[in-house]
């Protein structure tokens, strides 16, 4: 852990409220500047002000988790970026209902399985469509179709009340099962692509 990192941690946990508050204000200012560099094209000043303050609160709650693997300010900025990105994605997809998107993705897979003239692709699509419909768990099926519909994982996780990590594991398990099902039939993921025979 660098000397600068140690000074941050000491100041933010100082017994002196004056020192503690000054360090928090400085950190908040830097988080605001950092978010401005990344999100000024997509978020307005008022939003960035609010998000940087929310991020500061989150960082101060989690300061004990900092391990010194990176600079403290990089670690804190990563928390702020993730929060801002989550808000941006929530807004982008706020008016897109999960059920409609999932249904659209399922229809696309069904169509691919019935596409005339592309025997191997139709067979591969049929295998995965059947697996998704009958062999995956409900959780796996809903998560995978939501992902295929274009919903960001962060948004799927938020709507389902899961962490991104838990959601990623659900999807990873589903992908492994689908891939194994294709390989058991002598097929591959490439057979699903446009242009395959």
């Amino acid at each position, binding site marked *: 852990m660098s000397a600068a990192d140690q000074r941050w941690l000491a100041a933010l946990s100082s017994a002196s409220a004056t020192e503690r508050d000054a360090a928090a204000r400085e950190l908040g200012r830097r988080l605001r500047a950092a978010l401005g560099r990344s999100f000024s094209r997509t978020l307005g000043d008022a939003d960035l002000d609010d998000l940087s303050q929310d991020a500061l609160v989150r960082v101060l709650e989690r300061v004990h988790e900092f391990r010194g693997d990176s*600079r403290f300010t990089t670690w804190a900025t990563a928390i702020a970026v993730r929060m801002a990105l989550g808000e941006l994605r929530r807004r982008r997809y706020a008016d897109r209902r999960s059920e409609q998107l999932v249904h659209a993705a399922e229809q696309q897979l069904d169509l691919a399985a019935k596409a005339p003239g592309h025997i191997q692709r139709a067979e591969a699509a049929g295998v995965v469509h059947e697996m998704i419909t009958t062999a995956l768990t409900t959780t796996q099926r809903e998560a995978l179709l939501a992902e295929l519909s274009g919903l960001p994982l962060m948004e799927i996780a938020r709507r389902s009340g899961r962490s991104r990590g*838990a959601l*990623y594991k659900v999807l990873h398990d589903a992908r492994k099962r689908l891939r194994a099902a294709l390989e058991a039939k002598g097929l591959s993921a490439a057979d699903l692509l446009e242009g395959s025979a």
Partner: protein
Amino acid sequence: MTTPKATNVLAQLLAGTRIEELDCDTFSQFLPAWIEGRSPADLREALQQHLEMCPECEEERILLLEAVGNVSDDGPDAAPDS
């Protein structure tokens, strides 16, 4: 007839699937160290593979790089660069 997009997305996901993969939460823990070139050597391949499989984490990486920029850090009591 065009190939449904969902099928292409699924094909790419399945093609890149490995038996063991890092999840997003684990990746996020190492992202700050990753962008500073200080991530553990034995995890770098897994971290890179996760980026290839997860466009959202890749977007987060790019945004974090922009956010951090070239600002130096000498602690809370030093004169700020910006």
